[in-house]
């Protein structure tokens, strides 16, 4: 295989931020909150760049769907080694209701347009925690999928994928073209160095609208409200192991 890889990257609230639910329960506060690339997407970019470094593929194209700020996330991918970017501009109400089904339609349309042989995505975004986009994209293209991958290797025109499953690991071999979603253990993403960040500014980001791709963004899933989860009652500190054993016995836990 020696073609083009599409990598999906999502801009999300930084993983270390303690999120706050809006007082009107319409969502979580995003204004003025630190955002960064979804950690699983970083792993996807790293894997694509590695494949290119091994000369197994020719070009890495980073794609992000969202408002203007999505371009920052694409720049990060370019600084990590992606060759060019595609910003699929989605704003306003469309962005509020943008879900995995809509994103997967965009990714599938781009895969055809760009004649991609491989799509690498993260296994889930840490904001909506859906874990759906890769699988949906594969279904729409009728391509096989290697989800929750912790190891990917090329064997001719096939991919060998080791998957993280309940209870252990599973190895599968899939035909290409294919969709792969990255688990945490796939690799350790590199840091973008300053020279590479400067170089990334010269790389091209194409701007497209979903309509250009023939994708309609209508969603039949509505978020009615967002709430704080129930808070746990404050616990107590015990002084000694004996105390601890006593409390657990009283609570009937041991």
């Amino acid at each position, binding site marked *: 295989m020696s073609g083009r890889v599409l990598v999906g990257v999502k801009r999300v609230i930084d993983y*270390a931020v*303690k999120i706050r639910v809006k007082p009107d329960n319409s969502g*979580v506060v995003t204004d003025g909150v630190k955002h960064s690339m979804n950690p699983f997407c970083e792993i996807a970019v790293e894997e694509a760049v590695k494949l290119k470094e091994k000369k197994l593929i020719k070009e890495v194209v980073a794609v992000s769907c969202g408002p203007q700020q999505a371009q920052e996330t694409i720049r990060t991918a370019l600084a990590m080694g992606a060759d060019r970017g595609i910003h699929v501009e989605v704003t306003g109400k469309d962005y509020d209701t943008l879900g*995995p*089904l809509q994103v997967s339609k965009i990714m599938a349309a781009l895969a055809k347009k760009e004649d991609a042989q491989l799509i690498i995505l993260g296994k889930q975004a840490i*904001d909506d*925690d*859906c*874990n759906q986009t890769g*699988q*949906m994209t*594969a*279904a729409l293209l009728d*391509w*096989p*999928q290697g*989800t*929750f991958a*912790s190891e990917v290797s090329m064997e001719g025109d096939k991919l*060998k994928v080791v998957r*993280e*499953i*309940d*209870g*252990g*690991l*599973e*190895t*599968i*071999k899939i*035909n290409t073209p294919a969709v792969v979603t990255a*688990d*945490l*253990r796939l690799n350790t993403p590199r840091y973008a160095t300053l020279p590479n960040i400067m170089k990334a500014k010269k790389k091209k980001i194409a701007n497209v609208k979903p309509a250009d791709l023939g994708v309609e963004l209508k*969603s*039949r*899933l*509505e*978020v*009615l409200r*967002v*709430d704080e*989860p129930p808070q*746990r009652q*404050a*616990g*107590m*500190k*015990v002084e*000694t*192991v004996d*105390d*601890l*054993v006593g*409390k*657990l*016995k009283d*609570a009937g*836990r*041991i």
Partner: protein
Amino acid sequence: MQRALCRATQRSRSLSSSRRHASTLLVAEHDGTKLSEGTLAAITACAQMKPITLLVGGSAEMAATAAKADGVDAVQFVDNDALNHGVAEEWAPLVEGIAKTGFTHVVAGASSFSKGLFPRVSALLDVAQVSDIIDVKSEDTFVRPIYAGNALATVKSEDAIKVVTVRPTSFDKAAAEGGSAAVSAAAVDFSATGTTTWISEEVAKSDRPELASAKTVISGGRGLKTGDNFAMLDSLALKLNAAVGASRAAVDSGMCPNDMQVGQTGKVVAPDLYVAVGISGAIQHLAGMKDSKTIVAINKDPEAPIFQVADYGLVDDLFKAVPELESKLP
């Protein structure tokens, strides 16, 4: 058998005539002898979306076993080797095809199997999917955690077929015995696509309870320093008949395998007792265990965030406290 078939036919007739009413296709997971805990929890979650038809990939014997689950109204089975390893590419067109025969809901317990399969089914049906629900408000309205469980979203689906996965720890398990559902072979032409070849699996064998369903879980984090020190937790777990889990820090540093990971990106557990040893309590870890009934934290750092959710916290050196705890257990 004749009677069972006859009943199944009547049922499918009544289903097609009343399409407005809920009717659930529940994709069963099993190990060849019994239904998974997640499947039994999903049966409970679907109580408002009856009747429930269980789809079993496997033999007639397994289908007959599944039919005994309390709350199941019918079982359809497909016996084909291509379905054996839960390959999503083979399962998806099958589930899609059966879903379209009059079901309003397609449901499964959240697991690595359904996480791979259900989004594929959703896309084939051109519907959104609702992942990992923790509550059912009505036939079309569900509650699911977002942002690692730091917010709960109530979502309403207006799709004709609602594709839903259920968080197993959020619902009681239906009894595996006591039901008597009608069993029939699914009326489908199944042919394998062959785009994906299953090669092998390495499943960690253990005589301990399974992590996701254990009544007691003991987890270790970075504080254990080395993988060898996990033996200390194993020994404690043996005494408590507990499963052993780990934080991402412990997994990332190679101290234990990834399938032990508890958290947003690992397993979600809700045991009666969760003992966190040498775990600071990062957001991502709390996402996987904060619904445990009683949480105990043993950590030498009194400022560790884990103490904010622990019912009982012991500020002490774990290398001293854990062996002492083991020696003082009944």
